[in-house]
């Protein structure tokens, strides 16, 4: 692996190695560019992944403190962990569950389709659906998504049999084993899924796509990737003309270093991406880098999330098998007669035993709580994943009370769910209960919002530099060689799990950078 010089002004710096950063590294090195990619966490491998959920959590999770406020559930239910994502090479693609639905055409025109909803900061995406669809197709081939391009669907698990039977009885039509970036047969030099039930702990066979063992090693094989793990970027610097010149970071030994750069791409997961831009304030960019619009950190979206569990008289053993291998798509529509704008997916879900009481039943104690866990063998589970509306004041700021190990303010998350989100949650969890009741559930249990696993919107795309942080290529309006390459750029959340969209937009951004660089404009 090459080691580029700190003062090499020809490298592209990428901050973060997950779905966005890892994909960018492969795409840019393929195009002949030299890349230095920073990752705050350590490098794991299929061999070091642990199927002890507690160990895996400690090994992979972003555990730096955050502060939070607002009326969303995690303030009460998950005070020390408002968001659950990764700090490891491969980022959150190490612990994701592989669900890869596309956004629907109506969802990227949310402002036009839903109208002006008070209390929401809706906007249309600055990109045509046909264009997005073209890049979805490229991304789906890259990730080997099931039920696309001739890849077989996943076989049905016990948990899915329950969801399927109930959903069909309710009249739902589009119910299947989901679109998954998990090999349903061996492909891309990776094994097929053997239904381990530990997607979240890191897939020990590599059947699930992760940049850790796909995009990143390919970029390394090009000889043009310098991956610096355990290195934490604290600031992006710029010159007098307002162009990014490089980054300041702490190396694995905690020493401050400076890496010069020709282009900087930030893909730190939407909370840390916003934090880094805010930390990079300067005399010229007084409210944070590329933040003349005051939109950095605002419009934070995390999806309407809720578990629904059904308890039956007979065993389900829902911990066996790929976690999210099932979906009901019928509610991913715009139909205001349901009492809210936007739509949702009902996705198959299970929780391993140690995680269930923490994420799925986080308020509980006493007989009522214990009686749910007592039925662990006989539980079926699903996760509501719905579109939450962006709000200007749902935002990431720099904490005024808490600092990290380097003395830098940690991210503060403020979130008040929009009434539309609450109406959708009530409808979706109600439908989830009905699905289980239709096949004889003796009890159903609904969880509050678990820690946020999908972070979006904190540096959103917009044609209008006053309404967003980047243009349609994720290129910031104010700093021409600064790009945002993760879910931060999503103008709205839609109901799709974000990874496929992040990869599609990264592929498109890399194509744009490659052309601009070749034409001498970057």
């Amino acid at each position, binding site marked *: 692996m090459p080691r580029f010089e700190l003062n090499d002004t020809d490298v592209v710096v990428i901050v973060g190695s997950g779905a966005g950063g890892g994909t960018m590294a492969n795409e840019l090195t393929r195009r002949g560019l030299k890349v230095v990619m920073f990752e705050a966490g350590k490098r794991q491998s299929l061999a070091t992944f642990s*199927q*002890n*959920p*507690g*160990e895996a*959590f*400690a090994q992979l999770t972003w555990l730096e403190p955050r502060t939070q406020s607002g009326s969303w559930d995690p303030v009460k239910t*998950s005070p020390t962990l408002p968001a*659950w994502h990764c700090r490891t090479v491969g980022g959150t693609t190490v612990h994701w569950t592989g669900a890869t639905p596309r956004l629907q055409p109506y969802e990227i025109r949310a402002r036009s389709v839903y109208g002006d909803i008070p209390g929401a900061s809706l906007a249309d995406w600055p990109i045509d659906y046909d264009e997005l669809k073209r890049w979805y197709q490229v991304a789906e081939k890259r990730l080997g998504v*099931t*039920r696309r391009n001739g890849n*077989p*669907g*996943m*076989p*049905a*698990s*016990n948990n899915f*049999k*329950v969801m*399927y*039977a109930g959903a069909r009885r309710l009249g739902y039509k589009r*119910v*299947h*084993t989901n679109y998954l970036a998990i090999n*349903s*047969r*061996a492909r891309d030099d990776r094994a*097929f*899924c*053997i*239904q*381990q*039930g*530990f997607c979240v702990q890191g897939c020990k*066979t590599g059947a699930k796509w992760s940049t850790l063992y796909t995009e990143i090693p390919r970029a390394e094989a090009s000889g043009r990737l310098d991956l610096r793990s355990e290195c934490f970027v604290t600031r992006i610097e710029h010159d007098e003309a307002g162009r990014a010149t490089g980054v300041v970071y702490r190396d694995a030994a905690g020493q401050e270093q400076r890496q010069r750069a020709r282009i900087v791409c930030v893909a730190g997961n939407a909370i840390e991406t916003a934090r880094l831009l805010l930390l990079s304030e300067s005399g010229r960019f007084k409210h944070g880098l590329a933040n003349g619009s005051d939109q950095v950190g605002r419009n934070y979206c995390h999806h309407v999330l809720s578990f629904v569990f059904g308890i039956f008289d*007979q*065993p*389900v*053993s829902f*911990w*066996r*098998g790929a976690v999210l291998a099932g979906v009901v798509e019928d509610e991913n529509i715009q139909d205001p007669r349901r009492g809210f704008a936007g739509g949702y997916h009902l996705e198959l879900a299970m929780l*391993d*035993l*140690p*995680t*269930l*009481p*923490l*994420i799925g039943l986080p308020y509980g*104690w*006493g007989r009522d*709580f*214990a009686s749910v*866990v*007592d039925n*662990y*063998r006989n539980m079926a589970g699903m996760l509501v994943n719905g579109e939450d509306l962006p709000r200007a004041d749902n935002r990431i700021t720099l904490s005024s009370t808490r600092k990290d190990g380097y003395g830098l303010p940690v991210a503060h998350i403020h979130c008040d769910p929009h009434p539309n989100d609450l109406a959708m949650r009530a409808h979706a969890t109600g439908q989830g209960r009905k699905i289980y009741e239709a*096949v004889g559930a003796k009890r159903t249990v609904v969880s509050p919002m678990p820690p946020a696993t999908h972070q979006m919107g904190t540096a959103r795309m917009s044609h209008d530099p006053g309404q967003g942080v980047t243009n349609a290529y994720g290129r910031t309006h104010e700093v021409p060689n600064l790009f945002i390459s993760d879910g931060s750029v999503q103008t709205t959340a839609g109901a799709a799990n974000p990874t496929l969209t992040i990869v599609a937009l990264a592929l498109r951004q890399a194509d744009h950078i490659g052309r601009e660089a070749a034409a001498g404009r970057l």
Partner: protein
Amino acid sequence: MNTRATHTDSLESADRRSFVRGVGVLTGVIALGSPLAGLLPSRAWAVQLQVLSSAEAAALLAMIRTIAPHDTLDDAAYALVVVAVDGDAAGSTEARAGLKAGIASLRDGFALMPEGARVEQLRRIESGTFFQSVRIKTLLVLYNNPIAWSHFGFEGESFSKGGYLLRGFNDLKWLPDVPLADSGPMPTA
């Protein structure tokens, strides 16, 4: 959301243990026929404590059983939580004092009260730091060990056994199978 796994290592055979170092001890006997019998060297177990007296440990164990009442889950699993709470408190004088004061705030004879009375007492301190820290520790430790996994049915690590592809991920028979068009075939090498 979990701390590192707590294993049964901290439960030792009572007969092999020297009791001189600890402040208090918690002891128990595993029920005949329990699946735990294979996990431990003998049915009688004992744990040594660093902070708590035997009486305090017994009260804490009763509190944990009230937070997460699984009647047939062996006391040995609950003892792991006691050990974890005790171990956390050993780190500082402040934590030590906080834990002891918390337990002292439970009424005399708490461990021997009927469940309804214990619940009533805990409701009164439910929003306080002591209760919440014990509750969170209970969630973190009680369900993250082989004793609990065996009790509740969670089968744990599966990679070394080839996952569940041929071991029951689709063995549910009380509902119809899903048509192939909405699922997919079993993979073949």
